[in-house]
């Protein structure tokens, strides 16, 4: 049952619009969102299916390149290409967060392209403006934007998002986070019971399907945890750019290591912080998605981001950290030296892969470097 659940999750990770197509076939509405940091609870409460929008590493960005320069993060260029090519035309709405530069400007570009080139099948767009400082006034502003997003989703669904619907949605999402934390515990176990490759798919599949279904699959998977095979190899943590595919993890784990944790928005960080159910729901969502949201470019955060990574690596008993940065994803590069040095002070070595392409490129060089890193850790044991 555990393996069957895992295989189902892997299928949804591979066939990302599978659940959305089924949902639409039943007359439902699908709301896509670019990047994490969007309150999925609101989308769920509105009766729509939230679906994270990801790119296609193996597909060239030919159509999008007519409009978007190549100095954008390649993940965003790929997402933009999918929009321009009409692959997201089935969405009833697409929400862009005030994330990094590439994400924010992608929204601006799509707005302008939709107007100037009406032949492009770009779905309706909106933004969720989450500010990057943690001031009280910023938090109140985000609270206002949260209410505005609620109204937008009510207009889309044609129905009021009731208090009970919102509370139910929060409960479903919190349960999802709790279950994912149990998955994280199995990764941190000694020895680890889940590979990084499998973990990315377990976590990631949840953003492409109804959360209740994902929760049930997680429960089934966890019920068979006792049968999971113990893994062997140096324990590593990955930190850096969004990872919406398993290419890097496959390469690293093929060198004999196990990725037991990560500081990546589509990894363990996705399940950080439950929504506080003692608060009024919109306040609680604002608290989780603004005040307590860990993200590379926020302030005040350099010390906080550094402590987060060191703590993550220590709790998972990591023996090394791989920093992985996609081209032009500048958010993280300014954090890197401080994080590297803090890890070193904690006795944790690290290696960095910078200016990476979306589709794993130069894999032989990466493999050689990873193997050397893994061997260094093994020799030190």
């Amino acid at each position, binding site marked *: 049952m555990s393996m069957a659940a895992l295989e189902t999750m892997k299928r949804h990770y591979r066939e990302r619009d599978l659940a959305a197509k089924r949902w639409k076939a039943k007359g439902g509405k699908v709301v896509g969102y670019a990047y994490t940091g969007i309150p999925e609870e609101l989308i769920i409460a509105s009766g729509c299916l939230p679906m994270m929008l990801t790119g296609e590493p193996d597909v060239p960005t030919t159509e999008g390149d007519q409009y978007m320069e190549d100095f954008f993060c390649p993940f965003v260029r790929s997402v933009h290409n999918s929009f321009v090519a009409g692959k997201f035309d089935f969405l009833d709405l697409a929400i862009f967060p005030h994330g990094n530069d590439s994400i924010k400007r992608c929204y601006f570009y799509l707005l302008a392209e939709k107007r100037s080139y009406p032949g492009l099948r770009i779905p309706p767009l909106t933004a969720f403006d989450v500010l990057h400082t943690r001031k009280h006034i910023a938090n109140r502003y985000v609270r206002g934007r949260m209410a505005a997003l609620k109204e937008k989703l009510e207009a889309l669904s044609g129905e009021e998002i009731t208090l009970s619907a919102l509370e139910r949605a929060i409960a479903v999402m919190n349960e999802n986070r709790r279950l994912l934390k149990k998955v994280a515990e199995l990764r941190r176990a000694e020895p680890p019971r889940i590979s990084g490759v499998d973990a990315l798919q377990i976590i990631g599949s949840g953003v492409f399907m109804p959360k209740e279904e994902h929760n049930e699959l997680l429960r089934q998977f966890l019920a068979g945890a006792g049968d999971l095979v113990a893994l062997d190899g140096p324990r590593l943590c990955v930190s850096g750019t969004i990872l919406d595919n398993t290419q890097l993890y496959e390469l690293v784990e093929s060198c004999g290591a196990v990725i037991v944790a990560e500081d990546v928005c589509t990894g363990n960080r996705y399940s950080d912080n439950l929504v506080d159910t003692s608060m009024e729901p919109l306040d609680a969502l604002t608290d989780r998605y603004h005040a307590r949201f860990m993200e590379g470019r926020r302030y005040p955060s350099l010390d906080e981001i550094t402590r987060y990574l060191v703590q993550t690596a220590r709790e998972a008993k990591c023996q090394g950290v791989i920093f992985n940065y996609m081209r032009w994803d500048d958010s993280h590069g*300014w954090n890197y030296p401080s994080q590297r040095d803090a890890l070193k002070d904690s006795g944790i070595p690290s290696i960095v892969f910078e200016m990476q392409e979306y589709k794993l490129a130069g894999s032989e060089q990466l493999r050689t470097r990873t193997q050397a890193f893994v061997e260094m850790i093994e020799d030190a044991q």
Partner: protein
Amino acid sequence: MSEEQGFKGERSRKSLKSTVVALENQRRHFAECRDRLAKGEHVILTFVGVPNEILFAMDIEAIYTPNISALISAKQMSPRYLDLLNSKGYFRDLCRYCSLPLAYFWENENPEDGPYGGIPRPSAIIMEVEDDPIIRIHELMAKRLGVPVYFWDHTMPLDLPPLDFGKTPKDIEAESYRESWRVDYAVKETEGLIAFLETLTGKSLSMARLREVMERSNEQFDYCTKVLDLCAGAPATMTMGDHMASLIFTQFYRGHPLGLQQAKMMYEEVKERVEKGIGVCDNEQVRLGHYGVPNWFTPGFYDSFVESHGATFAFMGYLAITQQWIKRDLSDPLRALASRYAGYTELGLLPPWHAQFFVEWAKKFRLDGVVFQRADSCRLLSGPILLFMKELEKHGIPTFAINSDYVDARDWDDKKMKSQLASFIETIR
């Protein structure tokens, strides 16, 4: 090509006396800032998307990250400082325009080692939260300098302005208030900024002084509009070096007496030159426009085609941007100021829906071609070049993009870049 390998950028050419005065004023201003610091007063490091009019109204001196970067670069010092950052683990592809001052202050304990006798060492930082690197660069700088920092957060637009936006100055002003929740927030940020400065300096803000600064800024920008109108129909009266120097008063002294003085001086001089038929090129054959930020390490590059090709830069964006910031309605000066900055990145910089403006300017200034500057490390200022180029070319206006960092000379191949721009000029001549 690094400093050690001997590339020396070309100095900018200046045809206006007002340009020379502007640069001298800046040197003097730096000296005044150093004096103020020595007396225990405050000098704030800030950025162009922060309501600096508040500082001027409170008689607090300001210096600017991009200004410092441009100066360091113009003095051919950028390779040294960027190499320093890289040696500390900050990757080469990261932002350079905003990070040069970080490197400068990292290395220099003695302020006299640097442009204009040394960049004043700020006593506090006020920074806008605009793009990815700005927060972290200035957080690092604040730690390094041991000074407090206030971050002024920018909100994000939800929807496009209407299609007919920007036809009149009144439209532009009205548009700045359209998404009112953003202006409301900008007011709160500005009040936060005021409280920060009051606590830091012990000074208070007078609303009467703020109104005075806002009125002065409007007058300053009105002169910019007049200069634009004069230049549109005439042979190029300014070099690219003059255009670039206009950055000083349009970006760093909005509403400051120096800003008004420089704008007025430029207007009077340009008016006289236009009336007398004095241009920068006797045989103007190609009128170019430059949209975006130029490179600061070899500013003379742009004017090096005047004699050889009769090619002038008849238009550059720094003066035109000011039209977005005019606020006639000062019934609530704080709200008017906040609205100027709430949409700063959309109204002041290069959002994709500004393509129509670019076409209008190109037609008004009878441009034969438009040159964009693309710096891979700075998406914020490079702008949506492809969308702009498509729109211009749809209207029959040829375009060309120079791929060059704004301040990093290390990868600049002068011969190659001149050959590329010359080829473009030759195709449109």
